[in-house]
């Protein structure tokens, strides 16, 4: 018990008190080779998600550079059509499935959410770790295929009939399908962890009405993941069955339908855009509040907008299919729905502007990236409004105009806020400040490079240059704009190199950050940087939306949680009244072993359906190993148990 000891505030925790020592012993993270695979703490897994996703951002960037290099002049023979098909498919698949969602939703979410909630770990930490290893498995399958000349070559959405058995023999499309299974199971696992953490592990006092906007957005995204990702798993699963065992879901000759695939895919695909964008908006809301030095203006409208975006995002998927000859009525409906989504997004924009306008804005490095987001995402949003109109969409469908649009939306909505977030939480994660000068160079190089490349693509699209062609004739007069577009890659690459140099330099000699270098209000800034393994010396309570700004100095803390086992507090979903205590299951190698057996079954099923019955027993064994109860408590638990029904 901890009550007898003097109460030390979380921000005064030096790690030297008796309680801190006991907690550090209880929450210690496993060491050594096997320990690396047994670690289940959210800060560790969150960083792994982020680092891994960033590596795939770089790899996806290399592929993008290859595309721009190939298109720099007409009739270029640098990359042949077969490799080019693989390169653009790998680029899109890598950026969406291996970078954007794992970085913006999983990486940031897993690291930040428990700290913002005031929790000592994420809910279901083993499921969280399992999700990470499965994500890595999917990434290795996709890239393993690519380096062995079996990379998918059917576009990142793998439309049938091109990806079906008749037009794509071999295993390229199968690899794409199974990569989807890997990464989506991973995202679904993390969605369960994050949603449960937000709903059950918030600090007492952090009612729904006081929840940081970032937590609201993570909750909405988790729900979007839970309801959207099954659609792509069904789509890719049925595609795999058509290819592997001869079903006919997408074969019109046998009663199947190719548009069914598009419906299933885009029912996932459009919510996916918001699954990528909303984490960016969440970062921006957090930063705008912090650097405007005032409470965010329009908390309720922003929360309502986020929830509305989550819902409306599920009713616009058909605008990706305007060129398929759908009935006019449904085209009109989906145009209206697509235009409607401007309202909640616009509302958020106005709230951010109003907050900055009425606050005392500090243009620090993370905020610079937010301004990049405002500019870039706004342009992407405006061209999105244009594309929601059926006649415009038909005119520029599958041209570089669409490519320009979605890069403005996705890079604007994800990459710029990502860098803002990295610079913002870098001190918390590493304990050191990132260098501002290098960060500013990084921003301008990337910003100039990005706009040079992608603004130009609008005009290439309007001049009729189609996507996914490996070359073009000199008589099309597209070379000048292609050279301009490709030149932007040089700046973006230079910007990324400056960023990497900044990270390496700052890790070694960056200024020591302290607990709260930005003077932010969130609970994640109340403990030392980087956080101790137990996160909070005392689970905090809060009395306002901005705890570190508003709470009185002697804001109460939670006592009575055991420090000899990993006890956590479970609170009510709505009003956060403490309800009961739970126990964190602690480190385990089993999630990693389960990920291995599941991966083996998934990979095997690319080649034979027998991989399912043969692969199932090892999966079952490892899952039993994972879930079989072990003596986690030094004292016999039943004698100390109190039950609530």
């Amino acid at each position, binding site marked *: 018990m901890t*009550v007898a000891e003097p109460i030390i505030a979380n921000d005064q925790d030096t790690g030297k008190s008796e309680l801190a020592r006991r907690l550090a012993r209880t929450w210690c993270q496993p060491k050594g080779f096997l320990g690396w695979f047994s670690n289940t703490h959210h800060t560790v897994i969150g960083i792994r998600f982020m680092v891994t996703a960033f590596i795939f951002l770089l790899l996806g960037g290399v592929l993008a550079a290859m595309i721009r290099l190939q298109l720099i002049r007409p009739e270029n023979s640098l990359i042949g059509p077969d490799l080019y098909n693989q390169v653009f498919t790998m680029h899109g698949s890598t950026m969406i499935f291996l970078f954007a969602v794992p970085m913006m939703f999983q990486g940031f979410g897993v690291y930040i959410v428990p700290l913002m909630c005031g929790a000592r770990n994420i809910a279901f930490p083993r499921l969280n770790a399992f999700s990470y290893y499965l994500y890595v498995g999917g990434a290795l399958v996709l890239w393993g295929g690519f380096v062995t000349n079996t990379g998918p070559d059917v576009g990142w959405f793998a439309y049938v009939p091109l990806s079906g058995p008749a037009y794509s023999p071999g295993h390229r499309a199968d690899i794409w399908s199974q990569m989807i299974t890997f990464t989506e199971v991973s995202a679904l696992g993390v969605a*369960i962890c994050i949603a449960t953490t937000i709903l059950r592990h918030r600090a007492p006092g952090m009612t729904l009405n006081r929840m940081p906007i970032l937590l609201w957005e993570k909750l909405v995204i988790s729900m979007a993941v839970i309801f959207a990702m099954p659609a792509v798993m069904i789509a890719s699963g049925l595609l795999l069955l058509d290819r592997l065992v001869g079903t*006919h879901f997408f074969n019109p000759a046998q*009663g199947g339908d190719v548009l069914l695939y598009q*419906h299933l895919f885009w029912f996932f695909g459009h919510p996916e855009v918001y699954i990528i964008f909303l984490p960016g908006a969440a970062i921006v809301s957090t930063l705008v509040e912090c650097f405007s030095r005032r409470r965010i203006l329009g908390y309720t409208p922003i929360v309502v907008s986020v929830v509305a975006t989550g819902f409306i995002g599920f009713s616009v998927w058909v605008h990706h299919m305007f060129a398929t000859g759908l009935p006019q009525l449904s085209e009109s409906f989906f145009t209206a729905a697509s235009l409607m989504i401007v309202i909640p997004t616009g509302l958020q924009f106005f709230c951010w502007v109003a907050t900055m306008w009425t606050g005392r804005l500090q243009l620090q490095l993370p905020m610079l990236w937010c301004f990049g987001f405002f500019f870039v995402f706004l342009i992407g949003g405006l061209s999105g409004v244009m594309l929601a109109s059926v006649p415009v969409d038909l005119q520029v469908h599958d041209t570089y105009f669409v490519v320009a649009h979605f890069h403005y939306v996705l890079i604007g909505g994800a990459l710029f806020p990502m860098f803002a977030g990295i610079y913002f939480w870098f001190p918390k994660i590493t304990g050191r400040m990132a260098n501002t000068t290098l960060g500013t160079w990084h921003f301008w190089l990337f910003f100039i490079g990005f706009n040079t490349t992608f603004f130009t693509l609008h005009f290439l699209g309007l001049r009729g240059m189609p996507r996914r062609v490996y070359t073009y004739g000199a008589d099309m007069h597209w070379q000048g704009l292609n050279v301009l577009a490709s030149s932007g890659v040089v700046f973006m690459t230079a910007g990324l190199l400056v960023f990497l140099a900044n990270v390496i330099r700052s890790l070694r000699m960056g200024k020591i950050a302290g607990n709260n270098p930005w003077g932010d209000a969130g609970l994640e800034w109340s403990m030392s940087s980087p956080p101790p393994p137990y996160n909070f010396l005392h689970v905090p309570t809060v009395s306002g939306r901005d705890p570190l700004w508003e709470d009185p100095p002697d804001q109460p*803390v939670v006592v009575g949680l055991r420090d000899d086992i990993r006890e956590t507090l479970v609170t009510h979903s709505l009003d956060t009244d403490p309800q009961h205590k739970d126990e964190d299951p602690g480190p385990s190698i089993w999630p990693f072993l389960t990920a291995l057996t599941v991966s083996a079954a998934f990979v095997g099923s690319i080649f034979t359906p027998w991989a399912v019955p043969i692969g199932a027993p090892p999966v079952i064994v490892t899952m039993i190993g994972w879930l079989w109860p072990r003596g986690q408590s030094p004292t016999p638990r*039943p004698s100390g148990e109190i*039950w*609530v029904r």
Partner: protein
Amino acid sequence: MATRAISDTPAKWGDMGSINEPIRRPLTLDVSSLPSVAFGHRNTTWLANVFYMAIEGMMFALMFATYFYLRTRSTDWPPGHLPPALTYGVTNALIFVFSLAPAWWVRRRAPEGDRRAVRNGLLVLALFALVATAFRVFEFTTLNCRWSDDAYSSTVWVLIGMHSGHLVTELIETLVLFAISLTPKMEGTRLADAAINSDYWYFVVITGLIVDVLIYGTTRFL
């Protein structure tokens, strides 16, 4: 029994009554007397199970949508096949309905700490799941189509195959919980797990009955 059951034990706010009252500067919120095992909706695994059922339910819903979508691509339904034979399907539907009884029993007795009843209930539930799985094998033989015949057949096989995957998963989970119930490890948290297992069984039964309506019902009147 060493455990004691308390319906609701509030945390203590120093001299405070509730967290939502104005704060009068207490220093601590003592949670030491809070329960360490929660049943029903308070349990975090219960919530995860709800999310899991939402994911799986979404998958079933999309497959149902696929079934009806493909129906619009064909003039005859089933196209050139006899509808699946009713014998095993109807028998299995009845088994599912009767299996709700042991699931309900486990769910009801677990919060009481009645390990013996839970153990017996899990055994009966596992037997029901085992029999349902055996009948499911026969169901596959009387579908009157093969998955590679046409899109209709593919959908029927995937629908029933998907549900069979859930059935077998649930069978294994129930067997594992039964094995745990034979050991001293069947304490509070595991009893809560047994109750949650019943919730999941309900889900398997409900989706199974909907699949039955599609496969055995709509092929006869749609």
